[in-house]
């Protein structure tokens, strides 16, 4: 077995040193009825080449985004990741290191995290960031719990235009926490209507920008109304590239920003692993969940970095911790920060404008199809289209033509008849004009 270095001679010598005669003597504490006599009923070991072949066969049964004209988004976006990123994150010193518990021999991971935290704080317009959460959706649940701690109030209001799976995840994360009440009227998502929901019991309002349907809103007024009630504004961003062009949540007065960072540095990978971002104000850091990296000095006075504020965390505080999170998104944060460093201010803003420009292009083309309507007044790189037919059916037929034409909203709102004909279409820099024309052509055929 290629991964196991001990030879039969080694094993014999080692057993002798230990003072037992056979390996099962070391399993003597296991109840005899439970120690298996035979190997479990699974295939035996395989050569590397055979493993490779098996996975290729599974991969071939899927339709990769890069092989078709591709327009899916809804919280996961296909961007071009420079080759440098994947090369660097595969360096064994990054890939095969653990959480940086021993800072003297983990400065690589720690400095990268410090830079990551700075980048996240900058793009969200916030003061500080943690070292990442599992993904955007779980970060959203954590933000509601954090708002409960920070405001000492119970009622969290979720906007109706928040990603429906983020709503479900937040509902689940707070399900057994008796002192949180979630309010989620699906039709309430405009700023004035959200303001009407706020009262003195409110801990926070959670909104998304651009929202799930692609619309951009200015939440400044909402933040003011919340702050007047000593409540918090939580802004969710599922497409972080938008932050290069759209006004930042921080500039609108957000208290907590959570985001799905997958767009930068990380591929689609069927939904995970991704990287959750969580940024906030300096004064709230002690209510924040998750790992955080901070600056300090070593015994010689040289600058260095450590994991800090661990008295919030489970390994110290146990049942009183701010969260049970331990592992974060590690390598995905590294991919994020390397990609962001390659982009820099100039590249990030250009990338955002390019995404928006292409989306405008496609929206205009789609609006020109008879019977098809783009529902958004404004948008960043994703918008909602109303078709004169069942959108899920349209998507299946487009897939036959090698077009993954978007996400039918019925996939996420199966019980809402208004969503049946609606399609969420995302356009990133990876989409070519030819891809757009193929989609438009095919849609014309379908709705004829």
């Amino acid at each position, binding site marked *: 077995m290629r991964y196991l270095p001990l030879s039969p001679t080694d094993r014999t010598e080692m057993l002798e040193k230990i003072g037992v005669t056979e390996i099962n003597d070391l399993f003597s504490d296991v109840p005899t009825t439970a120690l298996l006599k035979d190997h479990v009923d699974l295939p035996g070991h395989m050569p590397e080449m055979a493993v490779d072949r098996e996975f290729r066969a599974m991969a071939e049964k899927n339709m990769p985004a890069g092989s078709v004209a591709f327009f899916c988004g809804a919280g996961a976006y296909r961007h071009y990741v420079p080759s440098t990123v994947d090369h660097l994150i595969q360096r064994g010193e990054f890939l095969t290191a653990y959480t940086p518990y021993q800072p003297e021999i983990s400065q690589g991971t720690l400095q990268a995290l410090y830079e990551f935290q700075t980048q996240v704080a900058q793009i969200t317009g916030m003061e500080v960031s943690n070292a990442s959460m599992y993904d955007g959706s779980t970060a959203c649940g954590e933000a509601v719990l954090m708002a409960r701690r920070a405001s000492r109030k119970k009622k969290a209001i979720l906007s109706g235009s928040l990603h429906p799976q983020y709503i479900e995840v937040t509902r689940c994360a707070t399900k057994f926490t008796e002192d949180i009440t979630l309010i989620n009227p699906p039709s309430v998502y405009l700023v004035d209507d959200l303001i009407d929901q706020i009262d003195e019991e409110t801990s926070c309002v959670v909104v998304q920008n651009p929202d799930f349907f692609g619309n951009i809103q200015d939440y400044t007024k909402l933040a003011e109304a919340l702050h007047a009630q000593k409540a918090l504004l939580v802004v969710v961003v599922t497409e972080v590239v938008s932050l290069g062009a759209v006004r930042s949540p921080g500039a609108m007065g957000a208290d907590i920003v959570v985001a799905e960072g997958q767009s930068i540095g990380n591929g689609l990978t069927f939904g995970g692993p991704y990287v959750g971002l969580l940024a906030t104000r300096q004064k709230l850091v002690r209510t924040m969940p998750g790992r955080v990296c901070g600056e300090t000095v070593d015994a010689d006075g040289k600058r260095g970095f450590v994991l800090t504020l661990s008295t919030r965390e489970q390994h110290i505080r146990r049942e009183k911790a701010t969260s049970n999170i331990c592992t974060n998104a590690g390598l995905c944060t590294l991919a994020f920060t390397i990609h962001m460093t390659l982009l820099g201010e100039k*590249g990030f803003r250009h990338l955002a404008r390019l995404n928006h420009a292409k989306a405008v292009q496609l929206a205009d083309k789609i609006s020109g199809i008879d019977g098809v309507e783009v529902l958004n007044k404004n948008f960043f790189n994703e918008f909602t289209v109303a078709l004169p037919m069942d959108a899920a059916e349209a998507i299946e037929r487009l897939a036959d033509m090698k077009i993954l034409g978007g996400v039918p909203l019925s996939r996420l709102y199966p019980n809402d008849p208004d969503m049946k004909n609606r399609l969420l279409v995302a356009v990133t820099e990876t989409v070519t004009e030819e891809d757009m024309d193929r989609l438009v052509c095919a849609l014309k055929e379908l709705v004829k």
Partner: protein
Amino acid sequence: MMNKQGRPTDINTAANLSPGGVTTHTGNRGLEQDELLIYEIGDTQRTGVDLEDLPVFESRLGGITRDNEIGLAGLSEPEVMRHYTRLSRKNYAIDMGLYPLGSCTMKHNPRINEKVARLPGLADIHPLQPISTVQGALDLMDRLAHWLKTLTGMPAVAMSPKAGAHGELCGLMAIRSALDKRGENRTIVLAPESAHGTNPATAALCGYKVKSIPANKAGRVDLPALKAALGPDVAAIMLTNPNTCGLFERDIIEIADAVHAAGGYFYCDGANFNAIVGKVRPGDLGVDAMHINLHKTFSTPHGGGGPGAGPVVLSEALAPFAPVPYVIHGKDGFEMVEHVTGGAESFGRMTAFHGQMGMNIRALAFMMSHGSDGLARVAEDSVLNANYVMASLQDIMTLSFEGPCMHECLFDDRFLEGTGVTTLDFAKAMIDEGYHPMTMYFPLVVNGAMLIEPTESESKQSVDQFIGALRHLVTQAKLGNSALFTGAPYLAPLKRLDETLAARNPVLRWRKTD
């Protein structure tokens, strides 16, 4: 000096002296190079990407635009390569040496796993593209589920939890849902003193109060104390097995029976599954739910702190409450249940999309490479290595509990008594010997714990060298050479870091200084 941003120090201080007494202009010492922050190297003008030109278009952002500078520092591609390569060299990693971090299972990360995880058919698929276009992905999830169920002897598995602690939450939510359905309002979760901190933190998230169960003299759960604590208010016990002292809970079946007789459930923390994979099926021990850290037992890379994955196997009684989504066999291939529809008992959704697919791919590749025979060998060799370390050090260090141990062995700080050296000092001296220290001060059941987990990936030569290094350090401590420890590490990229300062005055980001 540039590398002491904001804190100028004299070039002639010890920090800049190499062992040979040579000072350098740069502050670097040969291959040991200092590296500034990207914000101190780059600027907002530089970039490492070339993007296509913008077409002519009219903005549809509704005027809600970002007008101010963000302040992001950019670097060109060669600068990026150099920055991160230099940073990487300041990390310890499994690829460089034995990483004996107890309870973390730092084993070899095979590169075929990385290769197949990057196949476009697996890496470049969207979570919401039509099910008909991702049949291979669902097949993969289904196969992994089959392996996990077979290895644990459990009938069901929830695949979406994102890490071990997320898996714990999944298991306890299933338990709470089952109890709610029975109309029982049980309020307490029992956890042994030696439990991972995530256990009580998770129980609290599910609205439970945590009651601690003491350990007995043999380092196991005190069975009479456990039985006395059981009652109609106990929802579950959360127990790690093998436990965090590296010992198999001998009374495990009796514990499970007692918990079940009292109407509670048995949650097993599967962090230490590596010791028994292919040898013992948790289902045969009476477990109702157990998470499996794919990043431990099944070797998906730890990546400096993640991503992990924590699928949870469930008993027949808990299976109906499993979270969405899950894969089922339909008449035209695989289907995915993504919503909790009328009458279903699922407790809900734990994450957007379907979980850590990238980790699932790597874990399945690891399992298929080993096969059922190789996985049993994994458990045996990991246990053999740990017992060999224990046998080779117990005359000179103080063993906390009698062996045999499982895949990790626990020492405490009694052997350092009177030397002026603490567990922390001892650990830092290991860094100078070229090792990542073992887990320190955990579990909490002994003073100054040192938990050593060599894993099955280490050769006998490697383990012998590690034993030799530890024996040398113990001897030096006992000889009174405490300076070797109290100032350690001497040979790492940085000297000991001031963690108190970092916590007292949290500086969590770079800021421009005028």
